């Protein structure tokens, strides 16, 4: 039995998601612990975003249960959402609003009172104090990503969900974002992220799940997954430079064919 301190911040059990006759997610189960970065990897259309959307409460699963910090996402959606912070793939803030206005909007929605000093501290922390009055639509991709992340954590959520957080970022911004994600883990947040980058998964994830055709193929630490699969012929044939990497294992397990 779990004690309070090792209770998972996210528990997904027997998740099935159907779009008409198409089974997007089949019997997916996993947990994310506090202070853990959990990566969900898979080719396009594998079911990553559907799984994430179900956790966010944006789509209703056919069957299965999802608990965020103990709250059932279907029965107590607002409580569950209050315990999670979400960084969506798209730049989904009103482009007319300034940085400060967006921060105040989401602070208000999450019930966080921000003083001017606290607001300035946040902007200083994400190195955007000189851009406080700038409209969101005028920020660069990296700056938007930093804003998006700080908003996802403005209420100190137990669980942080990130959908391909480093897509489109330059190497410097990507490294900086990884450091921020690791800092969140060190503070006790549980983090679930989806990514196409094997480098990212290896660099920051404590555990990963590889999902394909809506099913989880394997769950473990990146290193353990490499070790467990390094001798498989399909993994060896996917290897390009002799040394087996997570990408080789991923391609070996999910196939080399390009997905739509």
């Amino acid at each position, binding site marked *: 039995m779990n004690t309070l301190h090792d209770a998972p911040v996210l528990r997904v059990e027997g998740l099935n998601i159907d779009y008409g006759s198409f089974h997007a997610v089949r019997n997916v189960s996993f947990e994310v612990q506090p202070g853990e970065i959990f990566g969900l990897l898979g080719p396009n259309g594998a079911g990553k975003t559907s799984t994430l959307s179900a956790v*966010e409460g944006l789509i209703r699963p056919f069957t299965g249960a999802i608990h965020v910090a103990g709250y059932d996402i279907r029965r107590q959606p607002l409580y569950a959402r209050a315990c*999670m912070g*979400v960084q969506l793939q798209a730049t989904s*803030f009103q482009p007319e*609003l300034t940085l400060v206005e967006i921060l105040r909007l989401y602070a208000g929605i999450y*019930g966080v009172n921000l003083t001017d000093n606290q607001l300035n501290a946040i902007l200083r922390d994400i190195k955007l104090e000189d851009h406080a009055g700038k409209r969101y639509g005028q920020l660069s991709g990296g700056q938007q990503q930093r804003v998006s992340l700080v908003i996802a954590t403005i209420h100190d959520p137990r669980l942080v969900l990130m959908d391909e957080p480093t897509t489109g970022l330059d190497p410097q911004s990507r490294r900086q974002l990884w450091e921020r994600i690791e800092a969140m883990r060190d503070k*006790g947040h549980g983090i679930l992220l989806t990514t196409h980058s094997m480098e990212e998964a290896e660099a920051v994830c404590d555990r990963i799940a590889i999902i394909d055709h809506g099913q989880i193929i394997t769950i473990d630490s990146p290193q353990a997954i490499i070790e467990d699969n390094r001798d498989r012929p399909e993994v060896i044939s996917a290897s390009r430079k002799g040394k087996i990497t997570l990408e080789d294992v991923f391609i070996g397990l999910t196939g080399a064919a390009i997905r739509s």
Partner: protein
Amino acid sequence: MSSTASSPALTAIAPGTLLPAPRTLPSTSAVFSALLRADLTTQWRNRRASVMTVLMPVIILIAWKFLIERLGGPFVLANSITIGLNAIGLMGYTNSIARDREKDIFQRLRVAPAPNWTIMASRLTVQLVMIAILTIVIFLVGYQYDHVALTATGYVAGFLVAIVGGAVYLALGQAIVGGLKNPETVNATSRLIYIAFIMVGMFGEMGALGAFMNKAVKYSPYGTVNSIVTGALVPGTWTAHTTIALLITLAYTALFAILGIRWFKWSNK
């Protein structure tokens, strides 16, 4: 960082420490107030578009000065208000919803602890503010330029009925944005309906398009709204026909709202 009693504080937490879960949620009024402030700011930043929305009926009001003796001041005021309500519901509201849906702005709000109804209620409140501004501007221009003076009851009743009339076009806009996904298609469709309402509505109501169209327009969303606004501006002229127009207006609103809510998807994906 301080927080309300309902949410955890953003303080540094030692590694491995379990973060606190919220005991209660932020109050609905706090959520609504944050949303409304942001939506009003967005509307203000798009004020050029808002000015254009109000400008069209004002131009018609000024241009129709010579018709006041023939058609009556309240009728001309009501026509201008109806055209403005059309623009607010069909152009302003519909296009802003289509754009924000396309940008996933709604999805971002929906993954926060904001009840869905507060997101839409905030948007509708902004449109009510626009309707109030439109009505006041029309009253002022009508008084100053066309010398159309109403009784205090007429102004108040006209103001309230304008909100009822505006609801038809907001509901129609909701049905359009519910039935269509692509923002460009939404924009083109709402423009087409807007222009059709104005052209057919105005000319049809004056009898320029024949007896059949005159009758058809009377029972269209344009004609019924025009009727009730005209009736409200001069309460003494409110007849059984105006009451029927009011009932039809409410029926249109209910129909479009039901369709709009049933069809509406928060995301285009």
